[in-house]
């Protein structure tokens, strides 16, 4: 009689244990529970893109910088970006350090696109130096063309009010919050209005490159300020 009790009890126990383990295994197979923290495969860091610039002679020929100036520029560039290219985030970081009070990321984005002439998403030393060559050593015409290129966000040859508004907001963002007089919501918009009044001669709502260059060349202030940074470097 005792053995019968033992038997039933034992079978019952065994049955219960088997059931429990089987259900756990089933859930594991279904992926509902996991026993160990799945180790996430570390994303293979793509080896840092390395880029070497063209030779010094070529750059000398293509830009208006002297050899020494190119050397100085490259040393500074390489210091900050050892891999030889600047991607947009690094660029934004660097630019933001010059404007501690405001948020320079939007304007840095536009600037990045203006420098990145081949639109490959990263700024190499050649792009950098070409842009600087125009800005520092170019003729006023070239500088104005460069500025037009900056404002024309979608590079279609026309500056619309929306594009200008984006640029204006980006510039005002760099000022930050603590300004005098207090920045208002409509300040950038009004600034854009003034700009368009000045530039848009035929009042068609867009500014073409010829209108832009014409108007700037007739404006004394702008002309003068174009020469402002000539002694940089």
């Amino acid at each position, binding site marked *: 009689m005792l053995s019968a009790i033992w038997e039933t009890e034992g079978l019952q126990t065994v049955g219960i244990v088997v059931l429990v383990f089987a259900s756990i295994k089933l859930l594991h197979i279904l992926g509902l529970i996991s026993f160990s923290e799945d180790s996430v495969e570390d994303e293979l860091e793509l080896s840092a893109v390395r880029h070497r610039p063209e030779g010094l002679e070529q750059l000398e020929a293509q830009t208006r910088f002297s050899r020494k100036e190119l050397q100085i520029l490259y040393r500074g560039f390489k210091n900050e970006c050892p891999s030889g290219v600047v991607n947009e985030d690094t660029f934004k970081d660097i630019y933001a350090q010059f404007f501690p009070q405001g948020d320079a990321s939007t304007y840095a984005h536009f600037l990045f696109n203006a420098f990145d002439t081949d639109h490959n998403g990263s700024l190499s030393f050649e792009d950098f130096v070409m842009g600087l060559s125009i800005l520092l050593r170019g003729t006023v015409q070239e500088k104005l063309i460069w500025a037009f290129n900056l404002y024309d966000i979608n590079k279609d040859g026309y500056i619309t009010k929306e594009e200008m508004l984006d640029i204006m907001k980006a510039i005002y963002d760099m000022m930050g919050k603590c300004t005098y007089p207090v920045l208002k919501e409509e300040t950038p918009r009004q600034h854009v209005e*003034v700009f368009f009044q000045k530039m848009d001669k035929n009042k068609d709502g867009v500014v073409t490159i010829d209108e832009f260059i014409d108007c700037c060349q007739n404006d004394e202030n702008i002309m*003068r300020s174009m020469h402002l*940074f000539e002694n940089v470097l």
Partner: protein
Amino acid sequence: MAAGVAAWLPFARAAAIGWMPVANLPMPVAPTEKNKRQDELIILNVSGRRYETWRNTLDRYPDTLLGSSEKEFFYNEDTKEYFFDRDPDVFRSVLNFYRTGKLHYPRYECISSYDEELAFFGIIPEIIGDCCYEEYKDRKRENAERLMDDQEDNKDAKLPNMTFRETMWRAFENPHTSTMALVFYYVTGFFIAISVITNVVETVPCGSSPNMKEVPCGERYTVAFFCMDTACVMIFTVEYLMRLYAAPNRYRFMRSVMSIIDVVAILPYYIGLVMTDNEDVSGAFVTLRVFRVFRIFKFSRHSQGLRILGYTLKSCASELGFLLFSLTMAIIIFATVMFYAEKGSTSSKFTSIPASFWYTIVTMTTLGYGDMVPKTIAGKIFGSICSLSGVLVIALPVPVIVSNFSRIYHQNQRADKRRAQKLQKARLARIRLSKTGSTSAVLHSKRNGLFNEALELTGSTGEEKHLSKSASLIESQHHHLLHCLEKTTNHEFVDEQYYQQSYLEAGLQNYPSRSPSLSSQDGVTGTCCTRRSKKNHHPLKHMHTHLQGLQELSTIHIQPLSTSRSSLNMRVEEPAPLNCQSSQITTAIITIPTPPVTTPEGDAHLPAAPSLQNVVKVSAL
């Protein structure tokens, strides 16, 4: 602004050309490099090891030894190099700071030698980068404590004039200082031992007379034990009173752990004296006697090891807590399981879950008394799982406690958490400081830097240059860049306080904001040799004028183009009266359209075309 980024400043300035067509105001003049020399290599000879770097690299930090003219003192004419008779290994870190802008602390370096080198080269240790800062602080704290310990050891030297009280206290705290103290130390130790042994022996059953049952010795030799007890308590009381008298800070002494132990040790005796054989409370009185065993803790004054053990337990509190918690969880789980497994069997000892607790604890700690055993098969299976897991659960936290114990000797006892918290706060404070530092530098230099421009324009000689703060060229270029941005947007950077004020005032005012177009102003000079004094009562004045229905004016530019030297010599820091020949300027209500009569004499002219909205500043009084 980080040093490395300074290399990108020319780029940022060139990119500012993008703002020019948008700006409506003329731009300020750019700072010129006065002596533009080609970048050259300089050689730094540190105890024979030659380091070479560009001069510009060192110039990044003009307030250190290598960045300033102080290094000229170390210039060796013959070899055309700078010679420093210092440690060349530490100099590597110093030079790397100039190159990368980050100061690192090498771990193998001794903390005090590193500090000395930093002090010599004029670099403050607070700018050590985040990667090395914690290590640096830890080592520094260790060193400081070591020095403090050394100092404490020296305290044993007897001071010439010590009062009797001080002598006594010193004798109590450091028994090896004098013979009397030693004697006292051993006597108290002896009596503590006697007292504890007495308590123990009291309960031993002594030999019994044939007719009586066995009685404990305490009840057989009541008088003897009572006398022993009295003697011990007498000694302890005297000792406690003496310590209390000698303590320099009695209140603090009374709150310390040792004194509480002393009090608890002797209190039961006195309570027993006071309470005679009152049947009701005698039960409580018996319980009080338990506290006599606390006398054993008095030994901790005599034993350093005991104190350290107490320290360890206190510091391992979290690990012990974890152990306790996990054990509790396991006990509850297994007790429940055992209870339900054994429910079926007859005459089972597992009458309830709390009753199963006892079984679980005994099994998990591998004691196995055997007073409760499972009878069903399921119970036996779970019982064996329970004992196996018990071994594991207990074995896990023990190494942690052991390593903690060894750590206690070498590390600070302050809680790691508190330290990390302070560190985090300090780090955030440092970051904030550097950020506000740069912005306030801009604002500050706006007031001073404009002086320089005025000086340059008026072609003044060098003797006035001493007024200019020697901001580095990079700084002045950076400020010029920010200045151009201000001009482009026709708004100014101000500090937080001023912004709050003007924000409030703007809420009261509601002037329509017409964008100013002053493009045709300001003839040749085209700059702003303005002097602005931001005084606190400006906003009030503005409100005042507005309320009086005058045309809005926020500020008036005063252009002291050809002010005399006396005015230039005025210090700008004080928002004090501008003596810029402008004593005639009254702050009072200035009405426009008439241009204010109060212009300073000379060629100053206001850019006030009355019809246009001006951005003018009231020059104070």
